[in-house]
């Protein structure tokens, strides 16, 4: 006897809904769990005092600084490279073998796991170029890591600018560079910034690539060649060495909030971008 399709559908949809709910539940559980245990620890004092006894007590201030400076440096390096690449690919060439090579490079780079970036950053920046474990080594490594993201989102944003805008600009006697700087990029800006925010989010969460390039010093950096510890690294050390579960939760809470905030800003910008264009 065949089961009527109506019932197979009900069964199937229930299964699917269940799967989706499980996914959402698990992911939400993680956030709630961490925030529940970590928010009580998070206080102004926690954020702005230095750690004591290697992190068993005290706050996380230097790691906060590290988590701000390192992504900032990475973005400062990756931004011109990434946006410039996107501009070149969209405005200055047709699809030739050169562009294919560039895209291939970008796609491969996107697939490389962070531990390999850690290895590379270590052997190239830390050892061979002699920069040691430092902001610079970490920033350069992270910049390469987020480069594909910046290129992809920037390219998409630039392509979304209507061709008619460019035509109008040209018909008024603008050069290609003037058109890019005065019409295309300003219009693509929300989309580009979305990409930058996603890149920053990745840098904040990153651990493997950071430990082996920026080190884990708890001292406030005095120069670009000093080692820094980011919150992600600090959290890892606290958790693995079992130094202080309480502080670990606190650090994790800050981390999650930071990442959620950057992603939220990115999405809000993207929606504004889409809304503005479809008006």
């Amino acid at each position: 006897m065949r089961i009527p399709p109506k019932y197979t559908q009900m069964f199937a949809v229930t299964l699917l809904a269940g799967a989706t709910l499980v996914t959402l539940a698990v992911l939400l559980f993680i956030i709630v769990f961490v925030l529940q245990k970590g928010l009580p620890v998070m206080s102004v004092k926690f954020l702005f005092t230095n750690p004591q006894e290697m992190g068993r007590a005290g706050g996380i201030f230097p790691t906060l600084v590290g988590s701000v400076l390192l992504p900032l440096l990475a973005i400062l390096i990756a931004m011109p490279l990434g946006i410039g690449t996107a501009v070149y690919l969209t405005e200055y060439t047709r699809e030739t073998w050169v562009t294919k090579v560039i895209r291939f490079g970008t796609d491969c780079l996107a697939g490389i796991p962070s531990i390999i970036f850690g290895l590379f950053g270590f052997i190239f920046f830390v050892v061979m170029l002699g920069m040691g474990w430092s902001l610079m080594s970490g920033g350069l490594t992270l910049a390469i890591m987020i480069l594909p993201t910046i290129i992809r989102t920037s390219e998409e944003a630039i392509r979304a600018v209507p061709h008619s805008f460019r035509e109008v600009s040209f018909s008024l006697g603008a050069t290609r560079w003037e058109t890019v700087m005065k019409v295309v990029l300003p219009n693509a800006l929300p989309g580009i910034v979305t990409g930058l925010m996603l890149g920053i989010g990745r840098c904040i969460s990153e651990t493997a690539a950071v430990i082996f390039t920026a080190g884990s010093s708890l001292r406030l950096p005095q120069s670009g060649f000093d080692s820094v510890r980011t919150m992600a690294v600090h959290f890892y050390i606290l958790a693995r060495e079992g130094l202080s579960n309480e502080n670990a939760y606190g650090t994790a809470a800050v981390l999650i909030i930071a990442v959620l905030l950057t992603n939220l800003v990115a999405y809000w910008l993207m929606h504004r971008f889409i809304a503005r264009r479809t008006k």
Partner: protein
Amino acid sequence: MSDAKITVRKLSVFFGQVQSLRWVTMDVPRNRILGIIGPSGSGKTTFLRTLNRLNDLFPNTHIEGEVLLDGQDIHHPGFDVVALRKRIGMVFALPVPLPMSIFDNIVYGPRLSGVKGRDRLNELVERSLKAAFLWDEVKDRLQTSGLRLSGGQQQRLCLARTLAMEPEVILLDEPCSGLDPISTAKIEEALTVLKAKYTIVLVTNNTKQAARVADDTAFFLMGEMIEYGPTPQIFTVPHDKRTNDYVTGRFG
């Protein structure tokens, strides 16, 4: 010869292998409105865009023949294309205000050419908007976004923007195609006044518009320029049968 602002000799335009214009030969007379009519796909827009070399933006295009502006070959290697586009302005079919204020839209081109100074720019904006018959409607809100204007206003904004460059030639590609009759009338009125100072080429799908506004008319069909002459003659006693069929509405 000196009456022609632009001279076109045996112009053919190729997009890759496809030949969109076939050996077009004609003159664009100074200070008159030249209307270009013909069914879709006849090459009118391609012709127009060749005059300000906007077709260069597409890959794989090349031309044969020559286009002379005041006697100079505009496709001569080394010819300054950017300067060309300042002398020949263009208004597109769909109004495309740049996403900026009305004021910024108008001064976009002049600023790039180096025009500076609050007063000069203000005067330029007022002059251009008046010539496009838009000044009275927007003079109190020059800082609002160009996107907020109605379709007809936006198109007049685009006209004003082109005029602000103080070009010698104005090309218009079906400028009234999306507009209501009142806006259309305003633009046609503007063109009639402007021809005293400018040479105007108007591509239009609407034969009646050409009959109203153009001094001379050229009929294009399938990439060829079939006939060219004074507007009254084209519309009453055309020499070519195909022209006659088109203007009487037998096909379109």
